[in-house]
């Protein structure tokens, strides 16, 4: 369907998609130059929810920035917790107890499940399928209840501490997690795959749409499911294992096609892999403390450090520059969706409006993370 678009300059019109639009899931604005229903040029306009988190980091102590981390990618907040903790722990040389590492992995993966479920729901909503939203929210709700029990919040978690986690997990959480995984496993093949994935309308709608080639993905710095849908076998958890991820047996789903269906399948397979990681972590969960002794005011030695984690959307990097003081001298947040979205303009060129929105949905955008 992607024939070259031929149009005269005076036959195009500008369509402002957003910042208030049902398909942009937040306040993203895309300035589209359209020729009828074909997109001639697409330019995302960012910054509608920009809050300058990097400046806030410089203004407070290391610990004071912790709650901010959850306000960026609010769908996978624990991964942001984790990324920031890793950066600071690397700078200050803090050792994390093993039990805390396991709890971190369990909660981050649970959070990844909620993120992927929500993406699935929202993606189907973009495509006009309403009912899956409620099914996914049903499952997501169960996980949120579990996380609320130990972290104290449901969305913007501030659960990790330097050198561990805030709270130990209990038996109710453990049995609850096993139960949730069992329930999700039983629902995945029928409710998610039979009803939606194998649906002929959905397949025809997203197969071959929004093809992002391997080379394009690299040049735009795409990571996460977007890169893996383009045949790039890259997952920070495997390529650069942090925490205790190297101890678990899981696979990184990679699809070669590079279309929206490939990205869809990557995320659906990741749900399964995340459940495998959680189960293994719960089985192996060691005893011990959940928090190392860490001074209240951290003063890491001067230097600069990088720490990456894999969020539900890709490679989240923190570049932390310390000058020996009690505040971060500079904290750079490399958010995955920022790079992932930057390819939108090139790929969307010549697409139909509805296809471009299906493509945008498959990128899994979280706008506060892009704008930071």
């Amino acid at each position, binding site marked *: *369907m992607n024939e070259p678009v031929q149009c005269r300059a005076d036959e195009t*019109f500008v*369509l402002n998609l957003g910042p208030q*639009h*049902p*398909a942009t899931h937040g306040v993203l604005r895309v300035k589209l130059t*359209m020729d*009828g*229903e074909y997109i001639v040029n697409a330019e995302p306009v960012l910054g509608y929810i920009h809050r300058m988190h990097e400046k806030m980091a410089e203004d407070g102590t290391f610990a004071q920035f912790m709650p901010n981390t959850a306000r960026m990618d609010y769908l996978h907040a624990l991964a942001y917790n984790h990324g920031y903790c890793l950066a600071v722990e690397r700078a200050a040389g803090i050792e994390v107890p093993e039990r805390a590492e396991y709890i971190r992995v369990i909660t981050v993966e649970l959070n990844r499940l909620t993120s992927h479920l929500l993406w699935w729901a929202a993606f*189907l*909503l*973009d*495509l*006009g*399928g*309403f*009912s899956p*939203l*409620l*099914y996914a929210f*049903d499952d997501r709700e169960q996980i949120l209840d579990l996380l609320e029990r130990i972290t104290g919040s449901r969305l913007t978690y501030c659960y990790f501490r330097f050198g561990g986690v805030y709270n130990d997990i209990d038996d109710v959480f453990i049995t609850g997690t096993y139960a949730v995984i069992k329930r999700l496993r039983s629902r995945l093949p029928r409710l998610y795959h039979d*009803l*939606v994935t194998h*649906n002929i*309308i*959905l397949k*025809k*709608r997203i197969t071959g749409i929004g093809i992002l080639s391997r080379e394009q993905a690299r040049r735009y710095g795409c990571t996460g499911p977007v890169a893996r849908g383009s045949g790039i076998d890259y997952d920070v958890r495997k390529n650069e294992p942090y925490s205790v991820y190297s101890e678990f047996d899981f696979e990184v789903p990679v699809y070669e096609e590079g279309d929206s269906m490939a990205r869809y399948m990557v995320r659906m397979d990741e749900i399964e892999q995340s459940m495998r990681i959680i189960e293994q972590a719960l089985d192996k969960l060691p005893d011990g403390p959940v928090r190392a002794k860490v001074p209240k005011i951290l003063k890491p030695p001067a230097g600069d450090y990088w720490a990456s984690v894999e969020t539900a959307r890709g490679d989240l990097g923190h570049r932390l520059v310390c000058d020996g003081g009690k505040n971060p001298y500079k904290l750079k947040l490399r958010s995955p969706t920022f790079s992932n979205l930057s390819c939108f303009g090139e790929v969307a060129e010549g697409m*139909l*409006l*509805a*296809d471009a*929105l299906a493509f945008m949905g498959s990128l899994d955008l979280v706008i506060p993370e892009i704008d930071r």
Partner: protein
Amino acid sequence: MDTSIWRPILYLLGFMAFAGLNAAYLGWCERKGAARIQRRTGPMEVGPQGLWQPLADGLKLMSKQLLIPQGVDGILFRVAPILAMIPALTSMAVIPFAGNVQARAVGLSVLLIFALASVGMMAVLLGGWASGNKYSLISAARAVSQNLAYEIPMLVTVITIVMLTGTMNLEQIAAAQQGGFWNWNIFPVAGHSLAQAIIMPISFVIFFICSVAETNRAPFDMAEAESELIAGHMTEYGSMGFGLFMMGEYLNMVIGACLITILFLGGWDGPLGLSGGIWWFLAKIYLLLFTVIWVRWTYPRTQIYKLLNLSWKILIPFSLVNLVLTAAFIKIF
């Protein structure tokens, strides 16, 4: 009595009440149905099981200010919602609900209904055009191309029926199918050849798909694809302008279901030779309407060019082949 002026007026009043009730309560059914499909309860607060919800919604819509945004074409903008309702209401007049329950027996009622349905699509076009909103404009363009594509297979299929029954009068078409489901056009085993028994179900499927597309229902709701076009031609409408569009949409669904019932499902005829009557007619149209609602809440939306491809590349060839085969069978047997 038959020639009296009162008969059409009384019937029209009755049908208008029926239409209003349907438009309001189909909305309620849709919400309840969707809720059940999604494991919710739907509206529960207003009245038992939320039964008075449509009244509350209607009151709310009517009491809202009729906003005419700046830069719209004032006349067309006002006319469009009315134009959405009128053809649907008028079509009601010629639909035979039972043997003698019909406001006006028109000889060419099939043709009349299709003519009126085309006028109804003008509402979407005018509403989209007059709104001065680019999303509405895209919606209007989509509606026209979609309507154009789907009226052709629909009409060709109707010609098949007309050839079989030899009349364009809806009442006579239904009357020809009386006496049990084996006489219905969908499986005309009795009186027709076996080959036609294969053709007609295909015609039925084509007609059903077309009527879903014609009434702009999911998965073919291209004109109001809310994740792409906000609400399409209805974006700029508030209060009763929006309300009329919604009512028009539901009424069109009812008309579509009525047509399918009359053309394929034997009209008011009871299955298995049970005595016929208006209750059978209503049962059939509500079964069809439920199917339409069910489909909407199960499937995601398709794409405009796939929709057009479906019509031009599959439905139209199939319906034409059906037409030719039917003609051949009539001539041969």
